């Protein structure tokens, strides 16, 4: 290691020079998030990975391949939780570079694993190493963005997290395009697609890391006067991550995120099949419905988190939970009426609030615990997402399958699940309404 290298990556070297435009920071964060958001589109590789050897008995199965995505998501949660303090200490540039090295390095290892037909290498590469890159990249820009936008923290983090939602919209078609380009009669093209994606994503993520800057100490936007009271009052206190996660506020917000994600992710994962079963449409129309929901998932992240800057975080979550529950229980009605357009509108709104929940939580944490270690606190809260990612889809799959097996018509098999989702949102509502300011005894000395 050369003596100059540490200073290039250090937080100090990332402090913005005078006259730096703060609007340069959101694209830096989005650049990283649209790359790591590729994980949401990983399913396009599942089927091709099961015929790498030409559909022989030695080929991998769908359940085996499914573990790649699951390991990556679990590692996302774990790395965000464990490395959060390191992320805060090291600053966004070093973290984004490390994230790029892990995520793109993981894709390369996975590519070698596919070429050698060694599944453990794919688990290690994309799942374990790549998953660490996901966690680091996800939380890397959060506290930096909130320091640059103390006047609009919800919008700022919403932009970055919108990038993660957009990552699936890019990653899935890009993966398909690349496989089509590289495939031959004896090769699915997955290994080459992984390698090319590693190169492309490395460029984007490194550009993001090079562009990111932290504000000088005490910086505030020109002409902005921090309000002392009210919903938009500036946050002046800070709580350390090791104290924060022992407070009831942290666990209430954990429940808030877990309930919001559990309800949304269950529907998102089953959207295509649900649409086909409930309205008898073709697989192509079902796929189109899933595609439309992805757009609302992305748009909701920016829109709702921006709204939270005006209404306050608690109000916007109350809207997610109350309106969300009402919409869930109305889904069976749209099926009874045979009104497909209404069904699409209702689910699109639900999914926009699901995305909004992800994007608003960092600002909610900042309101409660300050910006000092908000990235690390956010990292620990993400474990709620890991749990919800298992519970939500399991509930929808299990209940609808059991109903179908019990002879309930396909079109009505989802009714009880929708009522249950409404109930889950009510649990989230209670947790949200119980959130109170953190006791001053937990605040760090100024």
């Amino acid at each position, binding site marked *: 290691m050369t003596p100059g290298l540490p200073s290039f990556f250090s937080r100090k070297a990332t402090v913005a020079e005078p006259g730096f435009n703060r609007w340069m920071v959101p694209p830096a964060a989005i650049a990283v998030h649209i790359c790591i958001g590729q994980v949401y589109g990983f399913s396009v590789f599942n089927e091709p990975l099961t015929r790498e050897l030409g559909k022989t008995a030695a080929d991998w199965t769908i359940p085996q391949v499914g573990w790649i995505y699951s390991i990556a998501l679990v590692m996302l949660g774990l790395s965000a939780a464990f490395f959060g303090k390191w992320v805060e200490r090291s600053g966004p540039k070093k973290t984004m570079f490390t994230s790029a090295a892990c995520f793109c390095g993981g894709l390369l290892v996975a590519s070698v694993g596919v070429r050698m037909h060694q599944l453990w290498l794919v688990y290690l590469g994309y799942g374990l190493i790549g998953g660490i890159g996901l966690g680091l990249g996800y939380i890397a820009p959060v506290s930096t963005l909130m320091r640059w936008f103390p006047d609009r923290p919800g919008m700022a983090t919403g932009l970055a997290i919108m990038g993660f939602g957009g990552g699936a919209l890019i990653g899935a078609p890009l993966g398909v395009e690349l496989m089509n380009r590289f495939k031959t009669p004896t090769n699915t093209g997955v290994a080459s697609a992984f390698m090319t994606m590693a190169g492309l994503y490395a460029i984007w993520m490194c550009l993001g890391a090079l562009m990111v800057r932290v504000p000088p100490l005490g910086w505030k936007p020109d002409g902005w006067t921090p309000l002392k009271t009210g919903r938009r009052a500036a946050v002046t206190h800070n709580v350390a991550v090791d104290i924060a996660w022992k407070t009831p506020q942290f666990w209430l917000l954990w429940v808030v995120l877990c309930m919001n994600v559990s309800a949304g992710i269950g529907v998102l994962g089953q959207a295509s099949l649900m649409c086909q079963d409930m309205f008898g449409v073709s697989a192509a129309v079902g796929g*189109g419905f899933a595609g439309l929901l992805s757009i609302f998932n992305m748009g909701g992240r920016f829109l709702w988190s921006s709204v939270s800057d005006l209404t306050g975080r608690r109000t916007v979550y109350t809207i997610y939970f109350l309106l969300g529950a009402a919409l869930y229980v109305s889904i069976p009605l749209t099926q009874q009426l045979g009104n497909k357009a209404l069904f699409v509108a209702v689910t699109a709104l639900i999914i926009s609030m699901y995305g909004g929940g992800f994007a608003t939580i960092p600002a909610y944490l900042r309101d409660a615990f300050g910006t000092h270690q908000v990235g690390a606190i956010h990292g620990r809260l993400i474990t709620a997402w890991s749990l919800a990612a298992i519970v939500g889809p399991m509930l929808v799959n299990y209940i609808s399958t059991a109903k179908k097996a019990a002879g309930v018509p396909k079109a009505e098999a989802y009714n009880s699940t929708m009522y249950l989702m409404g109930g889950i949102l009510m649990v989230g509502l209670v947790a949200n309404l119980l959130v109170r300011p953190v006791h001053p005894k937990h605040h760090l000395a100024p």
Partner: protein
Amino acid sequence: MNRFKLLVTWLLVGLPLVWGVARSVQKSLPLFSDVAAAAHRK
């Protein structure tokens, strides 16, 4: 120069996102034609 840099930076992330959204809209077209046909039948 600063404005140009800002524009290029936003294009760097905006263009891939627009491409992704366009592909998703394209994918969702069968849904719209199906909904429109259902409305027409009514």
